[in-house]
């Protein structure tokens, strides 16, 4: 009995929803096996990374806090990816957003008022947008591929951050430590659940997800994004401007990344330090794909990735499992998801031996 693969006439929605779940499960199994073979406590690591944070209710707040920025960035990226705009430098937009917001914070440090925090958030959004507008201009004017430009700019943004934090923005009261002053009470994010570390950025995250969901599924803008990503010639035929779509996609991605940046600075960090770049801009790429570029999926996928971060820290303390291995688990999930994509578009079919032809229906598997 031989099998072969043939293209499905329509993409399988069942597989579309199933593959991310399978990807995570297979990662857990495969990861456990591989790390065990390499001499680590493989399955202990899987338990700590994927399961312990779920069981330990005390850790749920950590999940929310870790997931928030990743989800916000991923929502912005997913809009771009759906339009075939590959914003790989969200990390840079995230950093510049934080920088812009911090700039406002430093200016208003001696003042107080409930308008300060929104002003910082606005600055964060604008900063991220500004940083993303350069690749947008270069792509629409000069057809320069945005993958490389957004990426190069994220390296530049790290240098910008270092310059400011080691130089003009260094706090006079920090004994030479490279950090800005601590944000004042008007400038820090309020805690919304007393007794926990859950701050207002969680609410912002939920709002972003809901708005994105609504816009992408119900508005003509969402339709435009989908057409441009699927068939650019048809988009032009339908009267949509490819250039404008590229601008939208990059500005939305940059703005949301910048928002995540200032929220993270004003929230968990409370100030700007050289260790600020935590790679969320890249993790968000994985989340975007794992969530199938859909806001609801991204919400779930963001929690899963946050799970690996929180669990990874736990694994390091409880069983001395090295934290960098978390990156390998994350890459594995993405690989398996991309491999699983194959089954969304193709199905396995039994091949009949070469006897008398019959136009009967064929048995299908998966």
């Amino acid at each position, binding site marked *: 009995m031989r099998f072969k693969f043939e*293209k499905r006439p*329509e993409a399988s929605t069942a597989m579309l929803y199933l593959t991310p779940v399978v990807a995570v499960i297979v990662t857990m199994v495969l990861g456990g096996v591989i790390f065990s073979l390499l001499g680590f406590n493989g399955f202990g690591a899987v338990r700590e990374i994927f399961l312990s944070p779920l069981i330990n209710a005390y850790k749920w707040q950590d999940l929310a806090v870790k997931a928030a920025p990743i989800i916000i960035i991923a929502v912005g990226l997913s809009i771009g990816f759906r339009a075939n705009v590959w914003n790989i430098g969200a990390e840079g937009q995230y950093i510049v957003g934080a920088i812009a917001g911090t700039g406002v914070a430093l200016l208003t440090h001696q003042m107080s008022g409930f308008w300060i925090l929104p002003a910082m958030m606005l600055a964060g959004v604008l900063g991220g947008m500004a940083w993303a507008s350069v690749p947008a201009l270069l792509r629409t004017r000069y057809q320069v591929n945005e993958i490389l430009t957004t990426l190069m700019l994220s390296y530049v943004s790290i240098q910008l951050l270092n310059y400011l934090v080691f130089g003009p923005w260094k706090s006079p009261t920090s004994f030479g430590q490279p950090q800005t002053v601590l944000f004042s009470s008007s400038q820090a994010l309020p805690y919304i659940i007393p007794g926990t570390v859950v701050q207002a950025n969680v609410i912002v995250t939920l709002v972003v997800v809901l708005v994105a969901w609504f816009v992408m599924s*119900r508005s*003509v803008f969402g339709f435009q994004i989908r057409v441009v990503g699927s*068939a650019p*010639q*048809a988009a032009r*035929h339908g*009267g949509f401007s490819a250039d404008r779509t590229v601008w939208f996609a990059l500005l939305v991605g940059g703005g949301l990344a910048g928002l995540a940046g200032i929220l993270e600075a004003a929230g968990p960090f409370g100030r700007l330090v050289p260790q600020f770049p935590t790679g969320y801009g890249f993790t968000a790429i994985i989340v975007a794909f794992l969530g199938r570029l859909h806001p609801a999926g991204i919400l779930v996928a963001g929690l899963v990735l946050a799970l690996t971060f929180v669990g990874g820290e736990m694994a390091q303390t409880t069983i001395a499992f090295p934290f960098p291995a978390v990156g390998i688990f994350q890459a594995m999930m993405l690989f398996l998801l991309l491999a699983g994509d194959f089954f969304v578009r193709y199905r396995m079919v039994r091949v009949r031996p070469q006897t008398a*032809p019959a136009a009967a229906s064929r048995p299908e598997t998966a």
Partner: protein
Amino acid sequence: MHTAVPYRLELEGIVKRFPGVLANDDVTLRVKPGEIHALLGENGAGKSTLVKMIAGIMQPDAGTISWNGQRIEIHNPRAARRLGIGMVFQHFSLFEALTVLENIALGLDARLSPRELEARVREVLKQYGLSLDPHRIVSTLSVGERQRIEIVRALLLNPTLLIMDEPTSVLTPQEVEQLFVVLRQLAQEGCSILYISHKLHEIKALCETATILRGGKVVAECDPRRETSKSMAELMIGASLREINKTASRQHGHQKLVVNRLTLPGHGHFGMPLREISFTVRAGEIFGIAGVAGNGQNALLLALSGEAPAEDADAITVDGERVGRLAAKERRLKGMASVPEERNGHAAVPEFTLADNSILTGRDRLGMVVSGLLRPKIARDYTGKVISTFSVKALGHASTAGSLSGGNLQKYIMGREILQKPTVLVVSQPTWGVDAGAAAAIHQALIDLAAAGSAIVVISQDLDELLSLCDTLAVINEGRLSPAMKVAEADIHKIGLLMGGIHGETQQEAAHAV
């Protein structure tokens, strides 16, 4: 009497299946040595599939192949070439950025030095009276010249069976004659020729035997020299031909579409520029634009649809309004609609549902978008109307465009535009790759739309289609449009010359300047 000579090629009981379709159903084909054998059938009958198996690109699911009496299997293209089977593809298998010589080298299995290869190529060109510059880059060549590369590549193999897949769809009538001379010479030298086409008058002129395919099965074998075009066409379609219902003398109204000296620079690095194109279409008139592929048809469609607006607002006028500089969206609001040549990816999005595809072009005129938000119900209702009015075989508005067959998708696209009641409709290649039933339905729909008072422009490479459908005709060549002529008074020979270019010598001159 002579002893029976084995068939050069004999196919028996060939079967080939694809997902959802039985492309070849128990096909039997026999070609004698030195015979010019036609393989006839309309689009989708299974001709290309069958031939790809002879050329070794695909394998049959069942059946046998015999070569000069010996049972064989053709596992890959190299094996086919070793047997002496040469193939000239319908959609050329050429590499644009490489030179003519490099393209030929890639099609040969023998390893020749560049100098040897060039010498052999020039020999073949001379032997068959063809002209080509071996060092030109393929992307700079005309369509007819590109086909010559394919032919030379096949001839260098010293083929004993030459397969030509729809070779004349890209040639002017004069070039077709030149090709026939070459083919007859080859047949005389003992090479069998398998000639695939749906052009009946050519087959009558060239071929001795014809095998007719319909729906994957062989329905007849005949001698084209003894049959009439009508009888062969009926065998191809499987029904008696219905005359298209065209009102004898259509009344034409006022001038609806006026194109005045439309000029556009070429788009992209090898796009054809449009030069001073001028024509007029009145209400109720169907205006045809004939021409060989690659002479600016696509650029003209983009210029008319609004995807490539002009500098001059006066260049295009609809009902007196200057629309030359307007983009696609505004033109639709003025009542212009268009259907580009490419169904998949240009006229429609394959991954989207039919309802979403309706939103693509219909949203502004039909109220599917209100203050930035979509109204899915309106789109679904409209799509349902299109599907039922045009008998589109689809499961419903939620089917994806990519899941429809070529003919059905084309019917949907046409229906989508026609039911918007445009005042001006421009279509390009309306029935390309479409089965005869759907083609007839589309032609009738266009005629009905014209009868209702719209102005219609049909751009097509199929001269037969234009002659049966249109009132007036012009020929596009190298981005220029000939003066219009009434179809009733048209002279095929003259049209052929125009298609080859009034300054047709220029192309040949360039080719000789080696």
